[in-house]
C-alpha cells in the first residue's frame, strides 16, 4: 500500500502554504519546469529572465544575447556630457547566471521557427522552447535619410545603441574645434526614448559651454513637438541660451539627406556644415523580429497588450521597444516593466491561471545639467483599446517647481539608474 511519508507531506504542505504571493520565497507551485528562451539581454529581456526565475525557480530560462557586456542607452547622454565614464553604463550577465540561475548564451538568434518552437543561432545552436520572449530592441531604417547607411554611421554616429557608437560620438566631441556646430537630428515618432535627443542636446551643451564655448548644438527635428518640451525649453533658456537651437520640422528641421564625406546635413534644401553630426534615423523593431515575420507594415510588433504574446504567432512574446504597447513610450523603464508583467503572465499561463490585474509603470528622468533634472511618469492599465495611462495620474513635473525640486530630480535620476540596473542585472 502506498504510504504518504512525513517528509513528502511536509514538502507538499510547505509548498501549498507558500501560495498567495507571486514572488514570495518558494512560491513555485505547481513547478512547471517549462523551457523559456529569451532573445535580447537589454532592459526588457534581462528583466524578464530575472523575474521568471523569481516567480518560478523551476523554469528552465535561457537568455541569448550577442554581446558579452551591455552598455545602457540611459545615462549614455551623461557620459557624453562628461559626468560619468563608459564603465558606469556597462553591465554584465554574471549575477543573472550565478544568483538568478538564468543560462546566458553569448550568441545571435538568427532564425525562429514558430511552428516547431525552435530558435536557431549563428553559432549553430538549436534551442526548443515552450515560450519564447523576444526583446530585440530597435534597428534602423537605413537610407530613409538619403546617404545615411551603416558606413555613414561610422562618421556620423547615431549613438542610439550604446557602446562603440557612444565612444565614437564622445571622441568626436572631444576632437571638434571650438566654434563648430554639433547637429542632432531626431526622427519622427515613434522611436526609442522620446526625450533622449533633448537630454543629449542638454548634456552636449553642458560639455560645450565649459570646453568649447563658441560652439553650439543645432537640433534639426523631424517633429514640431517633443517629450517634456516645456520643461526642456525653460531650462535651455536658463542654462544654454547661446548653446542650443531647436528647429522644428515645419520650420525647416526635417533632415532629408546627409553627406558624410563633406560633413553636411541637408534640411529644407539647405546644406549645413557640421563639426559633429549625430543622426538618429527612423527605426523599426529589432531585426530578429522582422525576419521571424512578427512585425506589421510599419515595422513594429503587434501584441496582445495584456500578455505581450504576438498576435501573429502563439507562444511568442515581444516586449520592449520592438512591441506596440499602447500608450507606453519606448523606454528602458517601460521595457523592464513589461518584462515583469510578461514573466508573470507566462508563469500564470503555464499554471493554467489568468491574471486579473495588469499594471505597468514608466518613470523617466532627463538631466539638463549635473544638478538640474526633470521627469515624466505614468501608471498604465489595460483599457478597452490597449494600454493607457491612468487618468489623473502621471505626467511631467510642474513647470513652476522650485529649483530644489530640479536638484532633487537630478539626484534621483542617478538613484533611478542605480536601482533599475541593480534590479535587472544585480
Amino acid at each position: 500500500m502506498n504510504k504518504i511519508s512525513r517528509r513528502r507531506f511536509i514538502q507538499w504542505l510547505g509548498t501549498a502554504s507558500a501560495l498567495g504571493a507571486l514572488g514570495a520565497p518558494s512560491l513555485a507551485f505547481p513547478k512547471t519546469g517549462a523551457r523559456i528562451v529569451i532573445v535580447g539581454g537589454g532592459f526588457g529581456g534581462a528583466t524578464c529572465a530575472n523575474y521568471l526565475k523569481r516567480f518560478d525557480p523551476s523554469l528552465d530560462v535561457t537568455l541569448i544575447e550577442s554581446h558579452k557586456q551591455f552598455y545602457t542607452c540611459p545615462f549614455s547622454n551623461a557620459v557624453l556630457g562628461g559626468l560619468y565614464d563608459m564603465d558606469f553604463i556597462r553591465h554584465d550577465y554574471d549575477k543573472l547566471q550565478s544568483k538568478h540561475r538564468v543560462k546566458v548564451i553569448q550568441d545571435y538568434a538568427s532564425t525562429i521557427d514558430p511552428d516547431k518552437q525552435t530558435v536557431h543561432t549563428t553559432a549553430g545552436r538549436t534551442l526548443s522552447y515552450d515560450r519564447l520572449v523576444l526583446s530585440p530592441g530597435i534597428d534602423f531604417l537605413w537610407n530613409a535619410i538619403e546617404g545615411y547607411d551603416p558606413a555613414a554611421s561610422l562618421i556620423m554616429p547615431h549613438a542610439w545603441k550604446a557602446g562603440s557608437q557612444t565612444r565614437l560620438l564622445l571622441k568626436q566631441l572631444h576632437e571638434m574645434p571650438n566654434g563648430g556646430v554639433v547637429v542632432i537630428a531626431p526622427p519622427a515618432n515613434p522611436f526609442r526614448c522620446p526625450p533622449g535627443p533633448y537630454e543629449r542636446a542638454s548634456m552636449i551643451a553642458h560639455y560645450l559651454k565649459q570646453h568649447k564655448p563658441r560652439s553650439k548644438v543645432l537640433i534639426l527635428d523631424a517633429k514640431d513637438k517633443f517629450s517634456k518640451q516645456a520643461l526642456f525649453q525653460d531650462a535651455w533658456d536658463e542654462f544654454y541660451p547661446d548653446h542650443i537651437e531647436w528647429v522644428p520640422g515645419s520650420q525647416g528641421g526635417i533632415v532629408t539627406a546627409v553627406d558624410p564625406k563633406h560633413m553636411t546635413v541637408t534640411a529644407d534644401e539647405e546644406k549645413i556644415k557640421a563639426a559633429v553630426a549625430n543622426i538618429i534615423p527612423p527605426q523599426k523593431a529589432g531585426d530578429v523580429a522582422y525576419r521571424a515575420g512578427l512585425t506589421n507594415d510599419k515595422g513594429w510588433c503587434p501584441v496582445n497588450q495584456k500578455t505581450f504574446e504576438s498576435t501573429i504567432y502563439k507562444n511568442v512574446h515581444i516586449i520592449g521597444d520592438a512591441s506596440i504597447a499602447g500608450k507606453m513610450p519606448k523606454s528602458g523603464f517601460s521595457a523592464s516593466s513589461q518584462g515583469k508583467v510578461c514573466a508573470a503572465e507566462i508563469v500564470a499561463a503555464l499554471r493554467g491561471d489568468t491574471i486579473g490585474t495588469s499594471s505597468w509603470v514608466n518613470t523617466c528622468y532627463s538631466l539638463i545639467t549635473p544638478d538640474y533634472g526633470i521627469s515624466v511618469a505614468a501608471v498604465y492599465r489595460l483599457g478597452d483599446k490597449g494600454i493607457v495611462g491612468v487618468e489623473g495620474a502621471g505626467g511631467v513635473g510642474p513647470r513652476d517647481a522650485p529649483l530644489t525640486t530640479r536638484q532633487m530630480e537630478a539626484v534621483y535620476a542617478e538613484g533611478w539608474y542605480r536601482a533599475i540596473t541593480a534590479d535587472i542585472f544585480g
Partner: protein
Amino acid sequence: MKQQSWITLAVLVATTQLILPGTVFATDYRPAMLATPCAGCHGPDGDSPGSIPSLTGLSTDDIISSMKAFKTDQRKGTVMNRIAKGYSDEEIDLMASYFSRKP
C-alpha cells in the same frame, strides 16, 4: 505523529482545496503585478542601492500612509505624487502587503 494522522491531515488539506478553490490555494497575482514596478526606482525588492529611499525596513502601515499622503498631496514629493494617484486605496494595501512579505 503516526502514519494514520498524516493521511488524515493530507485528506483534510485536500478537501479544503476542493471547498475553497481560488481562496486558500489560488495565487493572488495582484500584489506582485502592482508592486514589482516599484523596484525600477527603489531597487530590487525595495532595497535601494542609490539616492532614492528604500522601502525595506518600512512597515506595511508606513508604506500605506506614505502612498496615501502622496496621493492626496498632503506629502510633497517629486514623482511620487504623480505615481501614487495611479492606484486605488485597495491597490495601495496590496502593494504594501507585497513588501511586508519580503525578507
